[in-house]
């Protein structure tokens, strides 16, 4: 009686969870491609796509991916043998336990003799498999120091839940013959945790049992030309396929930046955690937005996350889509005025031309606006007292002090290809390179740091190479930009 009540309760929660989560793939949307993709358009599009694939040559691809990547998890194996072993032990052992032990009343006796199942040498064997798997998981998460591998509450819950199920199972088997009293207590623990696991499954990362195969299969047959409605649905589903295994962050080209900046959103695995939560609520405070903006823009688009993701998630396209949504909102993103923007420039044809320049202009404005004097060309500048504090703060490196050698020969401005690009450069750049260097000499911070010239510098080092006085012009520009970016991030806090 008790067993049945708990079983049906767990099954009900599981069923509702399943419906809630799967409907979420069609209800929630993500990124800039979200416009006009309603549920009523997405469900038929998904069905149409599914049928089209099943009745095409792509069926072969699906079968191959199912065997290689879903059953044998070749993608995990290629990445990390220990993790593959861990996952196979848990997955194979649990599958076996599920079919021969959990469903022992359902399995027809023609397949397995019931007595055989009760005696069950397999029970011991598969139990050992799962426990060794869990031991590896614990070792990997808590003992082995994998750089930048984050373990969140969900990862812990799942490991604890599995461990309780397994240990109580063993205790149950061993007390069966020795102590009925203990047996009964442990039976409750075992049954309750099993059903808790079942009920919790759709809401936890264990849901990847269904979604990761779905993602692997979907990505094997979908490409850029797939129906945008289906791409949207897939991207939402992909969030459920993420197991927070940390492979993307391990391979990420810029993950090292996290060590010095400390923003977790730089790590792709943590951005996925953020996005899972974000799509359901869509609201985010200013601080959170600034963190995700920086995290998602600090990316060289090297594709390593996508190439290595064991769940086959197309992270490249997901980032591109979400990045655009994030940078169009709230604060400006200083990182936009750096070579991190190269990829966006390369892909600009895929973006809305009416929106494309907005975040760039915003970043430019926020970085130069605090330095008002640049725009007051009629103002007379008092030369004394110079801003000593600024002059000293600009002495970041041994090379910056060279500004004082400048005798205004204007060589730097003459050889500058940016200056050379304009008929009337001051109109577009505010100050020319030699003027910026002179402003430093005078200690006029607003002029040294407020001109667009700094941010339009190609960093080609022509100025520095051609300076007869050895002024490290380009290096000085780098440091001024560093200072301006720091001030902008301070003022946005």
């Amino acid at each position, binding site marked *: 009686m008790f067993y049945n009540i708990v079983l049906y309760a767990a099954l009900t929660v599981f069923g509702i969870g399943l419906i809630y989560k799967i409907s979420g793939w069609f209800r929630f949307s993500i990124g800039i491609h979200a416009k006009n993709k309603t549920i009523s358009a997405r469900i038929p599009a998904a069905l149409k796509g599914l049928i089209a694939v099943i009745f095409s040559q792509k069926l072969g691809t699906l079968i191959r991916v199912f065997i290689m990547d879903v059953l044998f998890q070749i993608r995990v194996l290629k990445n990390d043998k220990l993790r593959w072993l861990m996952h196979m032990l848990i997955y194979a052992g649990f599958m076996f336990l599920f079919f021969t032990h959990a469903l022992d009343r359902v399995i027809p006796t023609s397949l397995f003799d019931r007595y055989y199942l009760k005696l069950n040498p397999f029970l011991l064997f598969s139990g050992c498999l799962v426990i060794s798997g869990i031991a590896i998981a614990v070792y990997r998460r808590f003992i082995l*120091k994998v*750089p930048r591998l984050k373990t969140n509450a969900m990862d812990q819950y799942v490991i604890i839940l599995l461990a309780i199920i397994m240990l109580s199972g063993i205790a149950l088997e061993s007390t069966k013959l020795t102590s009925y009293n203990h047996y009964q207590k442990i039976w409750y623990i075992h049954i309750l945790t099993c059903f808790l696991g079942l009920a919790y499954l759709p809401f936890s990362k264990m849901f990847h049992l269904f979604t990761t195969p779905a993602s692997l299969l979907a990505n094997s047959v979908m490409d850029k030309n797939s129906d945008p409605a289906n791409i949207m649905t897939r991207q939402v589903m992909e969030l459920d396929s993420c197991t927070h295994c940390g492979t993307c962050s391990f391979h*990420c*080209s*810029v*993950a*090292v*930046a996290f*060590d*010095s*900046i400390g923003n977790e959103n730089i790590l792709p695995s943590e951005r996925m955690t953020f996005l899972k939560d974000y799509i359901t609520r869509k609201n985010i405070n200013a601080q959170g937005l600034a963190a995700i903006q920086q995290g998602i823009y*600090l990316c*060289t*688009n*090297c*594709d390593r996350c996508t190439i290595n993701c064991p769940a086959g998630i197309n992270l490249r396209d997901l980032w591109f889509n979400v990045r655009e949504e994030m940078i169009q909102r709230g604060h400006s993103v*200083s*990182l*936009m*005025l*750096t*070579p*991190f*923007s*190269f*990829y*966006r*420039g*390369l892909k*600009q*044809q895929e973006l809305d031309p009416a929106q494309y320049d907005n975040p*760039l202009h915003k970043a430019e404005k926020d970085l130069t606006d605090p330095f008002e004097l640049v725009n007051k060309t009629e103002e007379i500048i008092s030369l004394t007292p110079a801003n000593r504090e600024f002059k000293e703060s600009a002495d*970041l*490196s*041994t090379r910056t002090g060279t500004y004082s050698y400048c005798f205004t020969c204007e060589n730097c401005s003459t050889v500058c*290809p*940016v200056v*050379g*690009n304009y008929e009337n450069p001051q109109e577009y750049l505010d100050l020319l390179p030699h003027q910026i260097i002179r402003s430093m000499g005078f200690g006029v911070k607003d002029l040294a740091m407020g001109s667009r010239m700094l*941010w*339009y510098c*190609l*960093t*080609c*080092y*022509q100025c*520095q*190479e051609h300076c007869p006085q050895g002024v*490290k012009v*380009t*290096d000085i520009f*780098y*440091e001024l*930009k*560093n200072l301006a*970016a720091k001030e902008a991030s301070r003022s946005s806090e």
Partner: protein
Amino acid sequence: MKFALFLGCNIPVRVQQYELSARAVLDKLGIEVVENSEFKCCGNPIRNTDNKTFILMAARNLALAEKQGLDMMVLCKCCFGSLKKAAHLLKQNPSIQKEVNGMLAGEGLQYKGTSEVKHFLSVLYHDIGIHALKEKTTRSFKGIKIATHYGCHALRPSDITGFDNPVAPVLFDELVSATGAQSIDWPLKLECCGAPLLGVHDSLSMGVTERKIIDGKQAGADYLCVACPYCQMQFDTVQQMMVSAQKLNQSLPSIVFPQLLGLAMGIDGNSLGLSRHVLDISRLESFLE
């Protein structure tokens, strides 16, 4: 001769012809390259806004090469310049070095400054030598005019990169000449390709590119020749964008140097990734004798 190969972020996904052709050429020359999947971003893109993070990112790569006990061979000129710059700053500044090493210690790494950073072209020029290169060629180009594009971050700041004479470099021209091709003089040879501002200020970035293309064309070049993925993308993908948008009414396709060298060494076009370009370079092989 053995190097740790540093590919950077762009080459493996967007400029694969550079990797293919460089590997093919290095293989023929008997230079061994050791892979290191742990190499990550060189730090260049973050220099504008966060110097400390830039140095950390570069130092981590340098420390990894040191751990392998190898000098680094870099294909990208922006990566090269950035790694050289960071190594310079680390050597100059013990307090930065200490701070960075503190952060690297978490991964069991330490920067000591024992590995050298070399660009691919420098290895060909200094470690192999023009004479030896010529001996390895089996075919020669004839009647082809190549406009060499030196690439800013290798050439300058010359006191740090030590690549070649910054005002009158010859290294790249001599390498091109070794294939039988004619390396032409053109006024904007040493100028920037425009790539650092793509996505930041497109009209300025493309304006710089446009002037170079027109100048190269006027000097009679058949092809631009580069040894950097950013320059190649700018002169290939971005030039095509400019042509499509009618911002440019002529085009000057670009190749990466190991493609030119590889063809002269008798390597087939497919192994050099000749089909992986956006602009048409099909005439290239017809210049072979």
